[in-house]
């Protein structure tokens, strides 16, 4: 496999509705920003780019089959090769990895990945219905198909197994909304308290409206290239492009119906799912104690797909101690509860410790006053951008938005793009992006690193 660089990206303003433009024109905003950041104009980039990957989730939202080719056409990318990817909420993360594959395999030197979703074209409850169609239409959807309900069921089990509290979940909401306060691309830039989160209207017990991301219209794109591609881009732009390398990718899956998720034995967990960082006598004993008290893996409280994606990505990137070796994570916080579950899947803490980890302060940004009494200092900021909860979640764009923010972090360019420096993770050298589809069915983890 060849080395792949993530050299540039662009994000449209995420908003509840963008009636001012059609979806290809919103993609064009993100694309124009990405090429301008490279110092190129469209005719130059068009000459150099080898092909593209298109990312969008729902034909229902678009009410347009083959929307990908419309974006390809509008961007002026015809007749170059392209294909559309779809994998629920992980569509953007899958798109990024398909772009990586195109470059790593030698098929392309320069690949453009673009994604979008226009969710405002139906009313919120109809949007909920479209999203719920991403659950089994024979056994899940007809019972009361509602994604927030599915995630709420998972977290009630998490609470029962581990004692996770709604206040710990609310810490995630306060953190992500406060981070977004400094992110001009974010849809919800709010200073909140734990009490605000709990007092918000209940959507699916125990998740309130402030525990849940919103629907959005938006687009994002990233440009990936090989060393040869980088040389071509630098020659065309006449400037040196900061090196951000994609040092490893991983992907995992799990059963569509949550009801079908296995309840594995301790031995199978050790064999298939334990991270190398967890392979110590103390942690083995910790997990054995959990099993002795009735814990089974993954059940409905944990995302095995997220664990397997992390495990594979860490192996490929040579990461042994995720919390110590990753400087920040942009992860798929469609719900505050799923951010907590994902801390555990990614090995930022052990299974069962996600709640206390959320309230510890370790996942917060340094230098930002959250109005919370946090016992520990930031170690690995999670969702410094504000995540899905505050930035918005135009599904096909989301995973690529995470990649763009990660590229800017690693280029140490957050101030340039956000117009304010608060969200720059100091000395960011390595970041992880995590994209997650419905109830943990497809999950991607990609590791990006700054190369001096």
């Amino acid at each position, binding site marked *: 496999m060849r080395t792949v660089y993530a050299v540039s990206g662009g994000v449209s303003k995420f908003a509840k509705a963008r009636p001012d433009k059609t979806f290809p024109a919103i993609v064009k905003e993100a694309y124009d920003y990405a090429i301008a950041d490279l110092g190129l104009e469209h005719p130059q980039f068009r000459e150099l780019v080898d092909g593209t990957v298109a990312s969008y989730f729902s034909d229902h939202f678009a009410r347009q089959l083959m929307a990908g080719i419309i974006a390809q056409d509008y961007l002026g990318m015809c007749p170059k090769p392209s294909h559309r990817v779809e994998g629920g909420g992980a569509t953007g993360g899958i798109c990024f990895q398909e772009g990586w594959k195109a470059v790593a395999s030698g098929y392309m030197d320069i690949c453009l990945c673009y994604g979008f979703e226009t969710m405002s074209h139906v009313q919120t409850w109809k949007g*909920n219905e479209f999203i719920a169609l991403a659950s089994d239409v024979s056994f899940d959807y007809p019972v009361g198909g509602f994604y927030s*309900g599915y995630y709420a069921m998972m977290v009630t089990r998490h609470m029962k197994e581990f004692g996770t509290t709604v206040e710990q979940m609310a810490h995630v909401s306060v953190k992500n909304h406060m981070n977004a306060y400094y992110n001009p691309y974010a849809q919800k830039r709010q200073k909140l308290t734990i009490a605000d989160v709990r007092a918000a209207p209940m959507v699916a017990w125990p998740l309130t409206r402030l525990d849940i991301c919103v629907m959005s219209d938006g687009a994002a794109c990233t440009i990936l290239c090989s060393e040869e591609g980088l040389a071509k881009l630098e020659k065309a732009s006449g400037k040196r492009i900061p090196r951000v390398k994609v040092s490893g990718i991983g992907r995992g899956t799990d059963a569509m119906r949550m009801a079908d998720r296995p309840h594995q034995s301790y031995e199978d967990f050790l064999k298939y799912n334990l991270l190398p960082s967890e392979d110590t006598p103390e942690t083995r004993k910790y997990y054995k104690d959990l099993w002795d008290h009735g814990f089974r893996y993954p059940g409905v409280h944990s995302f095995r797909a997220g664990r397997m994606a992390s495990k594979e990505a860490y192996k490929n990137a040579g990461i042994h101690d995720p919390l110590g070796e990753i400087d920040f994570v942009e992860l798929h916080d469609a719900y505050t509860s799923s951010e907590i579950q994902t801390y555990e899947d990614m090995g930022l803490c052990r299974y069962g410790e996600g709640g206390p980890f959320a309230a510890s302060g370790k996942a917060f940004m340094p230098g930002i006053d959250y109005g919370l009494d946090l016992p520990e200092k930031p170690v690995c900021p999670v969702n410094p951008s504000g995540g899905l909860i505050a930035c918005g979640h135009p599904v096909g764009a989301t995973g690529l938005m995470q990649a763009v923010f990660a590229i800017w972090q690693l280029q140490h360019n957050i101030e340039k793009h956000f117009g304010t420096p608060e969200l720059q993770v100091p000395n960011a050298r390595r970041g992880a992006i995590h994209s997650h589809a419905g109830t943990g069915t497809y999950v991607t983890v990609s590791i990006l690193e700054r190369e001096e």
Partner: protein
Amino acid sequence: MADEKFPTRIEETLEGSVLFNVPFPKGDDLSGLKDMAPIIIKQSYSIEYIHSYGQDSPFFAGLANGRFLVTREPDTGYTYGTPRGHDMYTGKETEWVEIPCEGVMHAFTVCHFGSEEFLPECPYILALVEFEGVNTLFLARVVGLDPAEASEDWIGMKLKGRFRLWSKFKPTDVYFYPAE
């Protein structure tokens, strides 16, 4: 906001007037067109699917006859609370087994909001139900509990199933209520 006693906003709806024309510059000067607000129209889309339950059909026939069926891998005995035609470990075809429709609440939520189809039913309780000797779960509605009193203490509660008299051939033809 749904919980406001006296809302200060009227809900937006999709009814409207039929419009056959809009203002447009009369002369040759088209420079103002880029400042025009977008034209937004309603497009309807509805469809009826001919959906087959295929190999899962006996489950729904069972519900219609007041019998709760699960599927089991014949050699390993791995049993699916939501039926599957084939086992995910051995790849073998499963067989149908009837079990008592009694279980335990494994996880739950109260939906106060939802998809358009289910909005009129809010608030409703969704639960994953576990059964004795069955390896996986079943998603169902639970009734007979106060949605306003949701508590994680509900988890572990014994549940009994009840079959709808007039089947709708949906998984909701069985629903659960507290056994005690």
